[in-house]
């Protein structure tokens, strides 16, 4: 492999993953490229079932990139590609035709065990909520029902029930129950973000990925969103990218600290925040850089 300016010298890492039998989603030894520019270096991320896993690190460290690999959103852009494995319940989901040859080029001798479903089904099982609220230009009801109609053949009444349940779970129902026919764009920023959570939940994903979901929200909306996530982890696994260290400490069970495209430290949140092992994590958490 050619040397890249982003490669971290004297790579000091500390990885204490959760027990392997409980993993819902797992990224193994991922490299990621924007064209010829490599932005992730041999990153692994275990995601335990029914836990919240937070990703922290300075801007540009690759947190969002890692998240975008997990449901293959990066694949919308032809010049971006990932080399490595992502396993959903032990089955490979990075299985486009170049994956195996790129793995071989890198020197990995692996047999892929592909998950038997296409990319749209994979994305339905691994939901994603973005940094800015992204309501679709349609009614609140249709926003939530959108994914359901794509993937399931349900009757009108069934969809009504699913929409109501999803809005309840995203803690938005009481605020919108009288105006389900209004445009999703008419809601406030915090409500729009919870609408996006509800939209993701309606298709019953196993994993929910959130990319700095609270960065555009005020403190009250943020608190509501955090409550929602704590409630949701009973049913699914959550990966959240955040710039807010307090947020990671408050809500997550595991935290990964990334730096310049490397996973520097990964362990339980209590441990990382109380006794960071690596020098870089220590410096970041104490505010020496960031």
């Amino acid at each position, binding site marked *: 492999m050619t040397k890249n300016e982003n490669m971290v010298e004297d790579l000091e890492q500390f990885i204490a993953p959760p027990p392997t039998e409980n993993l819902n989603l797992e990224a193994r030894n991922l490299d990621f490229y924007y064209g010829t520019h490599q932005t992730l270096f041999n990153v692994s991320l275990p995601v335990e079932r029914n836990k919240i896993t937070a990703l922290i690190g300075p801007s540009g460290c690759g947190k969002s990139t890692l998240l975008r690999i997990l449901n293959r959103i990066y694949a919308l852009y032809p010049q971006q590609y990932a080399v490595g494995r992502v396993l959903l319940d032990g089955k490979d989901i990075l299985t486009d035709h170049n994956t195996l040859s790129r793995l071989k080029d890198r020197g990995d001798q692996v047999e892929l065990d592909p998950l038997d479903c296409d990319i749209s*089904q994979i*994305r339905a099982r691994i939901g994603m909520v973005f940094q800015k609220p992204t309501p679709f230009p349609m009614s609140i009801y249709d926003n939530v029902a*959108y994914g359901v109609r794509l993937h399931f053949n349900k009757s009108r009444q069934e969809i009504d029930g699913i929409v109501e349940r999803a809005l309840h779970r995203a803690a938005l129902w009481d605020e919108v129950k009288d105006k389900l026919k209004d445009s999703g764009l008419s809601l406030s920023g915090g409500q729009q973000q919870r609408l996006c959570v509800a939209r993701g939940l309606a298709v019953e994903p196993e994993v929910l990925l959130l990319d700095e979901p609270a960065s555009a929200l005020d403190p009250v909306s943020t608190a509501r969103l955090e409550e929602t996530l704590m409630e949701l982890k009973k049913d699914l696994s959550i990966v959240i990218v955040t710039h807010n260290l307090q947020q990671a400490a408050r809500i997550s069970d595991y935290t990964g600290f990334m730096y310049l495209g490397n996973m520097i430290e990964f362990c339980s949140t209590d441990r990382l925040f109380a006794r960071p092992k690596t020098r870089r994590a220590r410096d970041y958490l104490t505010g020496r850089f960031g």
Partner: protein
Amino acid sequence: MSDSSLSQPSRSDRLFSSGSLGEMIFRSLCFSAATLTLVAMAGIIVSLTIGGWPAFKAFGINFFLSSEWNPVSEIYGAAGPIIGTLITSFLALLLALPLAVGISVFLVEFCPVILARPIAVAVELLAGIPSIVYGMWGLFVLAPWFAHYIQFPLLMNLSSDSWLGKMVAGVPNGANILTASLILAIMILPYMASVFRELFLTVPAQVREAAYGLGATPFEVVRSVIIPYVKRGLIGVIMLGLGRALGETMAVTFIIGNTHSLPHSLFDSGSTIASTIANEFTEATSEMHSAALTALGLVLFMITFLVLILARLLIGKRS
């Protein structure tokens, strides 16, 4: 301290402080620029109305209903050109719209990166070709080809009594309503496609990604997220395209056949308001003839105006 003492004198020296002479001149220049357009428009309407008034007075409602246009006996009924204008424009829109959507969606969603730029530039260049060039191409290339390979075979093989046969009846010379509509469609296509593309590019990447992230396929994303996202803009562009087709003169004059009767089939020759004016204005020696042509101009102006108002109403309804 030293800062403020330095900036104080220069402040009072400013030419454009509010209320000063410079600011007033600037404001009144802007105001007169804006009112100039209103004055010009009012002037056009008034002069067209005055010029066309003899024709409206002489023929009344028959100016719109009768299709007899006879400069020799000084009888002018404009139903032929009016209907011809509406039919060719709407047909052109009907043909161009799906193609324009197809081109722009392909460019934005599916096109390989290395191709996207050249195709987009080519589409924009097409939009810049002068209409006379389209007209020549229509007359020398499209019309003969169309007559030989489409009109003749259809005429030979379809019974003239059948519904379809009636639709394609007409002199097989390629100069007819349908070829005129085709030329118009080709002319408005690049404009619509390039503006559609710009509109689609305004959809935030995160909204697209969110739709794909829910597991939607490209078709589903385009249909239910991208197109609704820019719906208002799309309507505006469609109406502007229609406006362009309504007023297009040279290309249509070349290829529509220029007869003033009501067109009886798609392959019948006809005329539009613009082509009639272009053909006859230099030869309009009698007063009534010029008045009738001026009145036609007013009608075209009104049709275009109505289209724009319709666009405003449609756009306003969605906000």
